[in-house]
């Protein structure tokens, strides 16, 4: 009934539009078209019907963007709820979605989209016109929200990897330019160790996403997922082992430390100059200026050191998107919310300037208000512009496993434990591989690995 009504709406001319709208009205608000495209009339109608949406996100101050949305669509009322961050959030989304009373719009990190896609909890946004905005985003980011030909999420922010470093410490070690290649980085690390009281950086053993970002940069493809039953797992491939052999050497020679990150110890390390740098994501520059405020003016930003300086590459660490749950009874309005706050210039730019997210929309990445920023923390360097350039070098073909929650927790006890103990990283990768394959097989996947 519902789909026929919408088809009629498209087929009939403007004169019969009212009739079609009346037909649509037989299921007020409960618009759930599955295959056909939703017409503009239907969208207009949905956006002018009094509707209550629930939006689960842990983005701070997102109420500002939501307020703008409610101003634009006064009939739509959005309730923003923060049910926890990361894994807590996902556990609750799953439970609520299974129970059929989940929120309408949810925040999802890119790495978890495929696991929700697998359990069929996300609505395909294609019928609502999501294809039309695909070209407005950086291609690799957009691809992260697409699974099996279905558009499942609208990108919000991302984290292409770069290198933040203490110019003063590197200088006192005799290094004037940021290391261009990983070989340069090792030479610089040795100099920092010999001539200063610092180390060039810290490689947190618990930061699976950061380590994967480094593999991503090196062009390693540890995971693939066909969206159905088969996964490929190759975390211990020769390419991955080559990258880790580099870090094995760095760790063995004590050129980097291996403290867990985002702990008191780690913050103190950043503030007291224990770490002369941080290989990190594009959301980090602003975060760092708050976390290590005492060191203002001493930091600079650069691209990651490269494996092949002629083919600059980067990986990604973090960032998230907004998706619509299949259980939502107001999918049109829910999609419009997810789209509008991340697509319309005003709220999207606000994410960059207020929440300090690293943008995904081209229009924001080119906005002079964003790229022209010259933070004093980095001595007036145009950090955003630098990272906007890095974002273009991220490999678009990276995929995730549909069970990254397990992958990350297990990372900590296999590979991470090897890093923390300054042990055999190659054996750590093997152990991680075995655990992932075992888990995947037990969960019924056809595992290639």
């Amino acid at each position, binding site marked *: 009934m519902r789909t026929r009504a919408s088809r009629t709406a498209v087929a009939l001319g403007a004169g019969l539009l009212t009739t079609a709208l009346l037909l649509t009205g037989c299921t007020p608000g409960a618009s759930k078209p599955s295959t056909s495209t939703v017409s503009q009339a239907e969208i207009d109608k949905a956006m002018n019907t009094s509707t209550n949406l629930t939006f689960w996100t842990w983005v701070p101050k997102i109420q500002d963007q939501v307020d703008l949305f409610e101003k634009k669509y006064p009939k739509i009322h959005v309730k923003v709820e923060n049910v926890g961050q990361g894994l807590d959030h996902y556990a609750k989304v799953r439970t609520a979605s299974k129970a059929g009373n989940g929120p309408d719009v949810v925040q999802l990190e890119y790495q978890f989209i495929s696991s929700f896609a697998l359990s069929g909890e996300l609505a395909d946004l294609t019928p609502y016109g999501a294809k039309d905005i695909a070209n407005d985003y950086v291609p690799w980011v957009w691809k992260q929200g697409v699974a099996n030909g279905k558009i499942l999420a609208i990108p919000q922010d991302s984290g292409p990897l770069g290198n933040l470093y203490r110019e003063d410490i590197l200088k006192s070690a005799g290094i004037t330019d940021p290391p261009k290649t990983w070989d340069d980085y090792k030479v610089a690390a040795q100099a920092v160790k010999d001539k200063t009281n610092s180390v060039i950086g810290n490689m947190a*053993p*618990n930061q699976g996403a950061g380590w994967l970002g480094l593999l991503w940069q090196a062009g390693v493809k540890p995971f693939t997922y066909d969206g159905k039953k088969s996964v490929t797992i190759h975390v211990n491939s020769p390419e991955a082992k080559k990258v880790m052999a580099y870090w094995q050497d760095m760790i063995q020679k004590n050129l980097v430390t291996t403290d867990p990150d985002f702990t008191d110890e780690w913050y103190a390390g950043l503030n007291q100059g224990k770490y002369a740098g941080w290989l990190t994501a594009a959301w980090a520059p602003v975060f760092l200026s708050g976390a290590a405020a005492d060191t203002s003016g001493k930091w600079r930003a650069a691209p990651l050191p490269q494996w092949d300086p002629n083919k600059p590459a980067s990986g990604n660490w973090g960032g998230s998107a907004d998706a619509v749950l299949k259980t939502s009874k107001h999918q049109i309005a829910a999609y419009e919310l997810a789209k509008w706050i991340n697509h319309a210039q005003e709220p999207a730019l606000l994410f960059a300037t207020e929440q300090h997210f690293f943008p995904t929309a081209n229009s924001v990445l080119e906005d002079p208000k964003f790229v022209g920023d010259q933070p004093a923390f980095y001595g007036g360097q145009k950090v955003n512009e630098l990272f906007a350039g890095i974002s273009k070098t991220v490999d678009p073909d990276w995929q995730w496993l549909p069970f990254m929650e397990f992958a990350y927790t297990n990372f900590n*006890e296999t590979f*991470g434990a090897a890093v923390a103990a300054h042990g055999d990283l190659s054996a750590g990768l093997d152990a991680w591989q075995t655990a992932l394959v075992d888990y995947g097989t037990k969960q019924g*996947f056809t595992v290639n690995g």
Partner: protein
Amino acid sequence: MAHGIKRKQHLAAYAFVLPFFVVFAAMLVAPLVYSGYLSFFADRLIGGVSFVAFENYLRAFQDPGFLAGLGRTALFLVIQVPIMLGLALFFALALDSGRARGSRALRLLIFLPYAVPGVVAVLMWGYLYGKQFGLIGQITNALGLAPLNLLSNSNILFSIMNIVTWTYVGYNMIVMYSALKSIPADLYEAAEIDGASQWRLAWSVKIPMIRSAIILTVIFSVIGSFQIFNEPSLLLELAPTAITQSFTPNFYAYNLAFVNHDINYAAAIAFLLGFVIMIVSYVVQLSTQRRERLS
């Protein structure tokens, strides 16, 4: 006639306990039966739910994570419980002897950690344990000693023992102390007439008299050891690679259910853990009873 009154009384008694049984059945028996039911199934990401009979239980017996977790808690039990209860008994006796000055303030001070919320306690200790910037680290630094990593893979269990001891010594002390207070004074008089010293008094009169209170604290501690959850879960942030998913069986069950999405296996683990606790508690009780009969 008398019969009728008795029956009425019986009915009234049942009516009074009925609300409890309703809540008991709904909140304890039903979930227990349900999770028992769940433990015979498997819900795979691909393929969905299927009946697997005892497969989850068989898997647990071969699961190195689960077995290592059990071993870890057993080690915890053997080392931490005697230390904690020994200290608690010592403090209770010391306070009861009336020799310690300001015993009221002392009692309060020893009990105080129990009143500190577990989360705060773990965060506080986590800070103290910090390798370089924590208090202990700074002291070892100042003394020129090598920094001791209390959050490393090999030390973390002992660090947790320390936190648990710190928290529960006061609680156990209060249980023993109140038992000591209820010993009839004439026993002390008799012992004094016999010329018993304070030590002798403690050993031959006080401890045997509060035997049942001590056994109670032992049983509570045994159960508590197997159920350790807060400490690893909170220290995970600070020692992310030292605390594994299966650090303790209880923590493992949680991770299986909420991280690995394997609720069925988690239910099986929880049931096995329940059985282990029952068996160990029973053995402890049995051995104390036997000793009682022998003496």
